[in-house]
């Protein structure tokens, strides 16, 4: 065995051991399995723990079915199943470490790990074997972002192998042809996407979307979640009546699942014809103007890359290609989100 192969085997052992333990925990709970289908991605979902199942599945319920798939994602609630805590020593050479997490991602070996230790969240990927796992210390303590975008890291890892990039942006459209709407927190992206959805637009995503890196990029829906602040909620009583996290903290956004909103056309895919960068202007009416691709890249890439945490250069390169394929615009949002949604029709 070469030195490199030995290192790979050494790195693989703790990941595979964790996945084996999660498989055992899942089988001990009765072994329920469903298929999760998100665009070209299809994976068997094996969740151990009723509370964890109830927490993780609402945002992906639209994509669950029965049937086979090549890859598998385990999700195990350690508190409910009695699965012992993960090893306290970090078992892989980490590529980096920030304040949130330990992280490791190696496309050559197909091994990935993300650990947010004090929250008790461990994610494992043996991508060559098509096995991934999300170990949760206590389902009751899951942060709301894991309910809004469950399995987002596991989905990201699987998507990359198929040339698909999970991106921090909204996708809205008309007649199957859409735009990516992006912007930093407070840019008005979410409220504008919600206003569009309430105005008869199709919507495939409000916060995270899978983008197929094709000549004409395709947005595939992943989560049916809207995340809105108080201003966004005030758009319609339909929104305020569908909030799924009424006990949220003051700094958390309201989480709404689109299937709970009558009349909203949540669609599985949109072909993408433009990238629009939202920003609050304070002006009475919305204006749209072309911008350079650098400015668009700065709006789209950094938040996507930091939220996904691993494989950053790979994600950056794919986003460069996607931005390069699309005309790019700034949308200076007027005061009325419904008027902004109407103005965006110029881009479809």
């Amino acid at each position, binding site marked *: 065995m070469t030195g490199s192969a030995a290192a790979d085997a050494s790195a693989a052992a703790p990941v595979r051991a964790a996945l084996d333990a999660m498989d055992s925990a899942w089988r001990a709970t009765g072994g329920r399995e469903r298929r999760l289908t998100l665009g070209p991605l299809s994976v068997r979902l094996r969740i151990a723990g009723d509370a964890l199942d109830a927490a993780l599945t609402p945002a992906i319920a639209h994509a669950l079915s029965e049937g086979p798939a090549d890859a598998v994602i385990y999700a195990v609630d350690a508190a409910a199943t009695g699965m012992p805590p993960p090893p306290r020593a970090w078992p892989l050479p980490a590529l*980096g470490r*920030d304040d949130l997490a330990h992280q490791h991602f190696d496309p050559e070996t197909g091994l990935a790990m993300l650990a947010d230790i*004090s929250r008790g969240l461990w994610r494992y990927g043996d991508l060559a074997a098509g096995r991934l796992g999300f170990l949760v*210390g206590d389902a009751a303590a899951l942060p709301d972002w894991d309910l809004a975008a469950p399995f987002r890291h596991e989905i990201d890892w699987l998507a990359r192998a198929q040339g698909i990039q999970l991106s921090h942006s909204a996708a809205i459209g008309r007649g199957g042809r859409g735009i990516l709407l992006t912007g*930093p927190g407070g840019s008005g992206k979410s409220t504008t996407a919600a206003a569009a959805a309430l105005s008869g637009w199709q919507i495939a995503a409000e916060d995270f979307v899978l983008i197929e890196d094709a000549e004409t990029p395709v947005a595939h829906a992943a989560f049916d979640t809207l995340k809105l602040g108080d201003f966004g909620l005030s758009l319609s009583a339909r929104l305020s009546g569908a909030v799924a996290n009424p006990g949220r903290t003051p700094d958390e956004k309201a989480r709404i699942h689109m299937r709970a909103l009558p009349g909203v056309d949540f669609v599985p895919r949109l072909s993408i014809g433009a990238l629009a960068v939202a920003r609050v202007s304070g002006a009475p009416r919305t204006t749209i103007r072309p911008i350079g691709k*650098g400015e668009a890249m700065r709006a789209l890439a950094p938040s996507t890359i930091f939220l996904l945490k691993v494989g950053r250069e790979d994600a950056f390169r794919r986003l460069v290609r996607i931005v390069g394929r699309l005309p790019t615009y700034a949308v200076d949002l007027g005061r009325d989100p419904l008027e902004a949604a109407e103005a965006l029709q110029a881009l479809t």
Partner: protein
Amino acid sequence: MDEPTYIQNRKDVSAEVFDAEVVLVNFTTGRYFALRGAGARFWAHLAAPIGAQALGAAVAAEFGADAVQVQADAAALLDTLLAEALAVPAETADAADAIAVRTADAPYAPPALDVFDELEELIALDPIHDADADAGWPVRPAAPE
């Protein structure tokens, strides 16, 4: 004594040239940047180890610009790139690796680096997570006395 040389920090930084600007993201600090003016050419020459004097000379030659001004701009830009960890000292320098000088198709404009730090603030807002070295997860390490 040889001039110290510098190079793009490829370990922690991704960068791409779009028209008149270079977009740079530092994965470690959470800061991202727009490098404008002649910055794209300064950045291009940092793809291989290069010293401040040689950097200024190469860019001045490309633009046919005033060498004194461009040398000063090169030194100032290098200071900023090093402070932001976008460039790092090079371990070795080989003249054969130098990026070719080419004729610029626009007048010289001093490089300008715009800094965007809102993601850095978001990262800093999150508490540091760790486990006690002996007790392990989910026990937090004791606060230093």
